[in-house]
């Protein structure tokens, strides 16, 4: 019995040692290199299943760094405070049930979108925030923007396609929904303000 107990205690010590392996053993120089690489990885933009995505998934980071999950998260926490000085934030977002990381500006910065795309996106946000139960179809958006003569039909359709490709919205069974990017770039308060502004048009 005593022998078993001793073996168990040795095993526990080994586990503790393994857990402490990183990041305490990473030298400052190695950490600097890791942070530089993280900046490059998290600021990349690419296409995934015809939708623009930013940064990197947690799984890819695990495979690239060969860290365990706890170490990776601790490293990212440290990296967060590192980039905060530069006016950037590390944002976590969900993509098909998988955790992703990307970088976002801490304050206002120029947006990718043109005025027409912002109007269409603002309209969708206003409708979705006003009543989440009511479905938002393309017809409803056109009713507000095209029928009233505010925008041309082809322009609205073009904007919807671009917003889908850029990861702001997605279509589920003929109804429009937010995609990950709207949640990242527009907080709850901002979306509420858009609803108020929308009433004026």
């Amino acid at each position: 019995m005593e022998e078993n107990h001793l073996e168990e205690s040795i095993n526990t010590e080994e586990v503790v040692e393994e857990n402490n392996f990183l990041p305490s053993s990473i030298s400052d120089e190695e950490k600097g290199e890791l942070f530089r690489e993280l900046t490059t990885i998290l600021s990349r933009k690419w296409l995934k299943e015809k939708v623009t995505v930013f940064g990197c998934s947690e799984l890819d980071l695990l495979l690239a760094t060969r860290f365990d999950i706890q170490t990776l998260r601790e490293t990212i926490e440290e990296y967060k405070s590192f980039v905060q000085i530069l006016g950037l934030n590390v944002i976590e977002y969900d993509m098909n049930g998988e955790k992703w990381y990307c970088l976002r500006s801490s304050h206002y910065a120029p947006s990718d979108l043109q005025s027409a795309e912002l109007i269409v996106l603002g309209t969708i946000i206003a409708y979705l925030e006003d009543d989440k139960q009511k479905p938002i179809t393309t017809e409803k958006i056109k009713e507000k923007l095209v029928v009233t003569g505010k925008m041309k039909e082809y322009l609205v359709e073009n904007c919807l396609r671009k917003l889908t490709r850029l990861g702001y919205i997605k279509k589920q069974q003929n109804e429009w929904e937010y995609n990950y990017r709207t949640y990242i770039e527009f907080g709850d308060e901002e979306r509420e303000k858009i609803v108020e502004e929308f009433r004026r048009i």
Partner: protein
Amino acid sequence: MTDRDIIDESSDIISTYIEENKEWVETTFQLVFELKRKYGKSIRKKEIVKLIESEEDRSKVSDAYLYMQSKKESIMDSSLYEDFIKMNELRENDLLEQLLYPHERLKAFADKVRSLCIPITYFSGTTQTSYEEPLNDLTEEVIDLASIDEIENFLKKYKVFLEKLSIKSLDKGEILNIENTIKDKLVGKKINKNKINNLLTTLEAEILSKLISEKKIRVIMNNDELIFQNEFDDEETDVVSSSVLLSPKNSIDASD
């Protein structure tokens, strides 16, 4: 007689009046309460109360503060006045918006959405390196296929490109030998950038690249000359290795 005296005097008269007419006080508070509800609801729903109606309501309760006895009643009264101000702002904003053309209102909406957006930060640009430039340098060489001499000369000239690439696996000992050969050939010497292509085989160029990436050899480019140095100090960070594109003229077999 000052204004203050007049107010004090009139308030004394009113307080006497209030005491005599308690029902009237209750009615005034009820009126304030009803108006507070009305304006609170209108502001919440952004419904504009007409200016005349709003002025009538305000004049109805303009003296109500004189009848408010408890703190709760006074707060209700001041809150109603705040709602009058909010309603006025709402009315003015609505009027200003009506002066804008629809496309101006749309633009203002787009600007507002843009100002509320905190975008993702990323590096823009294409994700692939373009290979177009080297291909543009390609030139054609026309030879007379009837002339055997011309064909032989052509084959001799481009012998390197016609040879099949052989896959050669090396063990650690062989790699070490090649590494030593490279070090003997290059380290501590200044070699012209163009001449180095004749000195190395393709295999040696590969191993040299490996040695440089492993920081076992450092290359410094000084004009057209390459200076090779051996096992430099890690602390020297002000100088970094130069990247040089090599195109060795000798094939692998030449080293055997």
